[in-house]
């Protein structure tokens, strides 16, 4: 069990880690999801020993790592940049950590050759990193991390600098490889909610160095604990509307009849309503102006302006909405989340699945 206890780190007045705690069991792949600057890399670097926390500690199976320098920690890491040793061949790059651990060079090379075969680079053993493509260089880095057989594997957005297709392919390959590695604790940092939801057994949701939520993907996505968490985990962005409950009910530009039973039994007052982009649909009686429409694959995300409220609508089809055009929209408010004034979740009408 890898235990992260109350980690705090700040530098030049910027807080990178703010009392982060988590317990990670062997055999799990945990995704750390957050935007740039959320503290994902800081958390991984602290676990690796590359960053010394201001307070808190990391321990594995009850043994504290506080006094262990990075070169003595049983961790392996793959970073965003494809870091390899330029003066060594691909084979010697992968054999390097084994040689450092004391393995005989021939044995280390044999293991390295087997690992390179697993990552599909058996034909490239004699090449230098500079003679490989970006994807191949990152495969070498992954092979070097896996060959160590360290119990903790840290992956810091390993595919972010690759093109879309290669990223998808390598991600699938990596998941396949990790399935064969039993008892491994894998931490995978990502900025992409879809990746986090599809990849991990568990999600640590982070923003501004804080841990916003921690749980299984369905749980974290299905009922975001706070508005901030909802914003981080929603792609396309979630709509946050002011919700007034009193004599009349109003959720931004939408009125009482749209809210249905959602606001029933809710004490009069001011709330906020979180509404996923997929819960807006074309049609209905509200007329919105198209600000921007983006087609991604077979989906369309449209940014709208409805009576001064910015909204995002997600359609699972390719639709053309010219900017400036006026289209009718309707909202399924019954699927919304109600948040209190402090931004914490108060009510969720029905459990939501992953989009």
């Amino acid at each position, binding site marked *: 069990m890898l235990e992260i206890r109350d980690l705090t780190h700040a530098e030049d007045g910027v807080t990178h880690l703010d009392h982060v705690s988590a317990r990670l069991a062997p055999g799990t792949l945990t995704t750390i999801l957050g935007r740039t600057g959320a503290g994902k890399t800081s958390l991984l670097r602290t676990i690796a020993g590359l960053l010394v926390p201001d307070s808190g500690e990391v321990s594995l199976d009850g043994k504290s790592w506080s006094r262990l320098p990075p*070169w003595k920690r049983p961790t392996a*890491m793959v970073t965003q940049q*494809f870091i390899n040793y330029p003066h060594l061949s691909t084979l010697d790059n992968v054999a390097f*950590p084994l040689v*450092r651990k004391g393995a005989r060079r021939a044995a280390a090379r044999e293991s390295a050759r087997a690992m390179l075969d697993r990552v599909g680079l058996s034909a490239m053993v004699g090449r230098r990193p500079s003679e490989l493509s*970006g994807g191949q260089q990152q495969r070498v880095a992954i092979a070097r991390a896996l060959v160590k057989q360290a119990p903790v594997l840290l992956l810091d957005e390993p595919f972010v600098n690759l093109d879309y297709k290669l990223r998808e392919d390598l991600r699938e390959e990596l998941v396949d490889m990790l399935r064969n590695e039993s008892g491994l604790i894998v931490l995978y940092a990502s900025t992409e909610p879809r990746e986090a939801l599809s990849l991990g057994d568990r999600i640590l949701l982070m923003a501004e160095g804080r841990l916003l939520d921690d749980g299984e993907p369905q749980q974290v996505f299905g009922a975001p604990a706070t508005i901030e968490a909802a914003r981080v985990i929603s792609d396309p962005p979630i709509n946050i509307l002011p919700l007034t409950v009193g004599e009349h009910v109003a959720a931004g530009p939408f009125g009482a009849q749209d809210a249905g039973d959602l606001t029933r039994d809710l004490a009069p007052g001011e709330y906020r309503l979180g509404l996923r982009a997929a819960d807006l649909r074309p049609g209905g009686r509200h007329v919105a102006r198209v600000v921007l429409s983006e087609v991604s694959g077979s989906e369309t995300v449209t940014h709208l302006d409805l009576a001064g409220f910015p909204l995002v609508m997600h359609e699972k089809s390719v639709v053309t909405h010219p900017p400036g055009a006026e289209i009718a929209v309707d909202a399924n408010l019954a699927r919304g989340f109600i948040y209190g004034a402090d931004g914490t979740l108060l009510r969720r009408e029905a459990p939501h699945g992953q989009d």
Partner: protein
Amino acid sequence: MTHQPLDPEPRAPVSRTLKLALKYGFILFWSAFVVFPFLWALTTSFKDANGVTNGATWLPWLQYQPSTQGWASLFGGPGGTNIVRPYLNSIWVTLGASAVSITLGTLAAYGLSRFTFRFLFFRNADITFFFISQRIMPPIVLAIPFFLMLRALGLLDSLAGLILVYVALLMPIAVWVMVDFFNSIPRGLDEMAWMDGCDPVTTFFRVILPNAVPGLVVAGMFCVIFGWNDFFFAFTLTFTQTQLLPVSIVALNSSVTPWWALSASALVSIAPLVLLAFVVERFLSKGGLAGAVR
């Protein structure tokens, strides 16, 4: 129906031909500019007093009678000085001082590049500047303290004393060049080596140093060129026991300037540097760090 004859080979535009002519013209001019002094020194080294006073002559036997007097004088021939000993002294002092300077300078530079030092208001950049700042001072300012220190140590007029002084003079160059070079090596490479089980010392020797060869070569070249060519300190800190090549070349001068001997000594004094340039040239190729971090 008539056919227009096709131009069998389109002619190169005049401007392109002119550009080529200018380019090769410039290359030829520059080559002559570089080679001419060597050629002059070579022909002069095979002349005697008569040969050098008969104007610019280039062809032996046809324009002047070749003589080995200049070369013989380097080995203690008539009117000359044996430069074999000073030559070997220069090699020892230059290589010794350069090796020590590069070793210490590289270690210091790695520390300055990778670790943060703070003392009062001094930071890494200040320390790096302190190293190089002594090169700003005119040599005469340094000569007297060096003289006094070597005298106190009993190292005046000795190879060890000269090596010590040259280390003090060359190490700033090594630090200056290597700090800049190490800064260009991504820190991610050090960190990855740590993750792979290397402590900082192993990281330096196993990962960083093999990737710093071009920097070491540049720093080494600077050190060797300076050490080999220095006259001032070699002259002020030695007397009779120890002599370096530049001093012995000057000693060849007498009431009549022996141009033949000076030319021969000039050629032998630059020979090691030319040889070194050919040897290290292949290490200076760019792209040594390609593939480190993408």
